[in-house]
């Protein structure tokens, strides 16, 4: 498979995923007006703005988007989604792109978003909930141990305020959650 076919297949895969999601088919109605980019509170920091992301989807250039600083800068504020004149669920499209990158091992230029997500998912898979403290500890130790040290003061402050829980509460039915995960993994 040539490199070009390969990147086109990313577009096909994203479209197939969007078709499964509520109102996902609306992506085809994009008129490239840029309301999404103009509304986005973080597009100024993205390598490709939301409007350009859809242009890249059409041009078969999603590999460029996925290896740049773009999708992990979405803060899920949903402003693009509520303003899009075509009704495109753009925030959901960003989530789908995050999954697509992870699946194909395409790491964005700044990998911290992916690292935080990994720590989050590991904790939820292990306990059934997000024990904030261990998730953050994992994330900082993996990305910037020095900053982890710097955050100890903040952690202590939160602890004193009764806003930091030590230890992890485990959902009683986490066997059930694991059984659910197995069914979904088999079905892939």
């Amino acid at each position: 498979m040539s490199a070009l076919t390969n990147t086109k297949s990313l577009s096909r895969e994203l479209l197939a995923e969007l078709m499964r999601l509520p109102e996902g088919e609306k992506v085809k109605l994009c008129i490239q007006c840029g309301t999404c980019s103009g509304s986005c509170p973080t597009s100024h920091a993205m390598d490709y703005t939301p409007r350009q992301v859809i242009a890249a989807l059409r041009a078969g250039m999603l590999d460029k988007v996925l290896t740049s600083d773009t999708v992990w800068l979405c803060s899920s504020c949903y402003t693009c989604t509520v303003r899009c004149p075509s009704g495109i669920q753009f925030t959901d499209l960003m989530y789908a792109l995050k999954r697509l990158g992870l699946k194909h091992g395409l790491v964005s230029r700044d990998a911290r978003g992916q690292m935080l997500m990994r720590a989050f998912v590991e904790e939820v898979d292990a306990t059934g909930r997000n024990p904030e403290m261990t998730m953050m500890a994992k994330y900082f130790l993996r990305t910037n141990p020095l900053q982890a040290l710097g955050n100890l003061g903040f952690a202590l402050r939160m602890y004193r305020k009764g806003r930091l829980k030590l230890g992890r509460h485990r959902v009683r039915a986490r066997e059930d959650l694991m059984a659910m995960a197995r069914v979904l993994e088999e079905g892939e």
Partner: protein
Amino acid sequence: MTDYLFYPGCALEASSTHYAKSARSVCQRLGIGLVDLDDWSCCGATAYVGTDEDKSVAYSTRNLALAERTGATQLVTACSGCYVQLRKANRCFNGGPQVRDRVSRALAAAGLSYGGTVRVRHLADVLLNDVGPDAIARSVEVSLRGLRVAPYHGCQISRPFDDIAHAEQPTILNELLAPTEAELVPFPLTARCCGGMLMTTRVDVALPMAGRLLASARSAGADCVAVACPLCSVNLEAYQDRILREDGRGEPMPVVLFTQLLGLAVGAPMESLGLDQCLVDVHPMLGAYV
């Protein structure tokens, strides 16, 4: 006393225990009982959706299935993030056979089934539309007259769903706090993003976002910002030292949960409101009211 089934969510058990406490307390004063959903699990939050859509929806739906099994028709949450995630799970589940069948098979492995009937509601919606501003006004024991509050809605209480509050100009917190007689200052950035999880991964991008909100509230003359989301609460409070240092001006701005102000007004016991847990000292501002 009307009981509602309650989904606390992870943040209300860790970084925002004062939100959980004050929510329960204010509800009790207003004749509402919040009964925790037994053995609830992660809502499948933002971070999980970016990894695995079906697992996220399935984990989320597990909570809805547990709720349905109790006979409840509604599930109430105070966290705007959980609120959107649980509602989106309903939308995906009821949106088409592809997701529904897959998620149903996963639920079956846990001995559960879901009929798609549980309505997910934000606590603010329950307080405004079930209890109502008149009943809240009748319960007010301490007028907050003179206190200038910037009600900050953030994103997910009104987006993407755009029904309990307007997506661009939400007013649900204003309507809830009006009966307290506090002065609600004009706050044009009330629905702008606080930075969300980017405060952890991309502080260079998120810090100015939170900074602009605080500066806007300050220039509107607010004594404090009132929020309805645990992440907004942490983002606006925890990074103020740094924001003030970089701005080089301004005084620290107290950040409270709307349930803390409401609780204060309806005479909930002080110790149940967790006011000492706010990172910026609220006592100078609230001295006249406590």
